[in-house]
């Protein structure tokens, strides 16, 4: 009897896991090398995250890739760090909305859809994370305003990351690492 082909290939799952690790480590690396929370390291951190997400979506062009990548990221953060628990709802909602937008625009095959989808995810998630920061710092609502400014600065990096992601994909295609 012929077995049903699973939706996710093992290679794709491994790529998602590796990229989840790379985004986590590179975020920590930028925070350490950049000397803590300053505008430039914030922009750089978000830029790297978005760039890596774009490259991942070019590599794994399947519906659900973005949500699964975010889910793995958040599950490991939750199990190992605890603090990410309340970021799950905004992250998953933003991921699902972005996937919906990509589908509505014509799917994963068009490169521009990936960029719009990731940009939309970043915007939604950043708005959600400001809400979560209000939960954590509601006694100090001045700090919530400060964190909203910080998130806004981070979003500039995320927007730049969309274009650097596309540039990297171009280079990776030349190197035949991404073939699609």
């Amino acid at each position, binding site marked *: 009897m012929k077995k049903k082909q699973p939706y996710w290939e093992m290679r794709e799952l*491994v790529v998602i896991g590796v990229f989840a690790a790379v985004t986590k480590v590179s975020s920590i690396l930028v925070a350490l090398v950049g000397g803590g929370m300053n505008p430039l390291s914030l922009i750089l951190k978000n830029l790297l995250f978005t760039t890596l997400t774009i490259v991942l979506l070019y590599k794994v062009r399947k519906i659900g890739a973005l949500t699964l990548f975010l889910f793995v990221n958040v599950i490991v953060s939750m199990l190992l760090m605890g603090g990410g628990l309340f970021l799950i709802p905004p992250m998953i909602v933003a991921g699902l909305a972005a996937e919906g937008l990509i589908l509505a625009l014509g799917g994963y095959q068009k490169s521009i859809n990936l960029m719009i989808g990731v940009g939309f995810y970043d915007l939604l998630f950043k708005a959600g994370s400001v809400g979560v920061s209000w939960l954590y710092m509601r006694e100090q609502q001045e700090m919530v305003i400060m964190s909203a400014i910080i998130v806004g600065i981070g979003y500039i990096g995320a927007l730049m990351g969309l274009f650097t992601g596309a540039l990297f994909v171009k280079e990776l295609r030349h190197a035949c690492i991404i073939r699609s």
Partner: protein
Amino acid sequence: MHVLFVAEPRTGGSGFVSGLDVRTKILLSLSMSVAVIFFKSCGSLGFLTLATLVYVLDLGRYKVVSLCYVAICLMWLLSIGFMGLICTMIPMVPVTDPVTMLIPFLRTMVMLNTVLVLALSSRIQTLLTSLKSFKLPIWLYIPSAVMIRFIPSFIKDIRQIHETMRIRGYSLNPIFIFRHPRLSVRLMAAPIMFRALRSADDLGVAAELKGVGYGYFTENNKIKSYTPLIFQLNDAVTLGVTLLLLIAAGVIQAVWGTDTTGMLP
């Protein structure tokens, strides 16, 4: 394959906390992360900070713990300084006392204590085994396992990339990033990306050739963990004490709790 032969991290010795089941530590970390959201008084959060400090000190890693605490205290002092600056520049922002400013940092300290225990006293293999014991679907378990396994190897790759940059005459530090942001991105992101994609391809092929994932959680799956997880009396006691501590913190909040402060209603 290099990724599969990464040395295990140093664990936290043979104390009471080190002997706990990793699932107990994860559960404790999760319950504290939820609790710190609901507690908002200095008393209840201070009480939880002290309780979790006893928990983390049992590991005997005093240097790491004190370094983390010094960093948090520095951030608190910095925020007091900046708040003073904002109050001077914008008079409509009310002046906040340092004790109230401490509350978000107390939340961080509680989380830090529980996370440090998990990070310093758990082996990677034990974490993977506990992840498997949660019966996650394969499409979630495989990427999570790869992520946990890949991080130590990737940190070594980063060190190699850093050494390569130093050989070429570049030194990545805050001043260099400020002076050459574009070059920093190129020097850092490009090798990281190439390395990650190559490793992902290698690992993917290796996983397929080894038949990873076939028979996962089926009746034919006879693979057992080398170090089985055992839930002992210590774990039950720890979880019971945690529950009592949370109830006590709730009582402190109810009796000596403070109202929300700030310029917004």
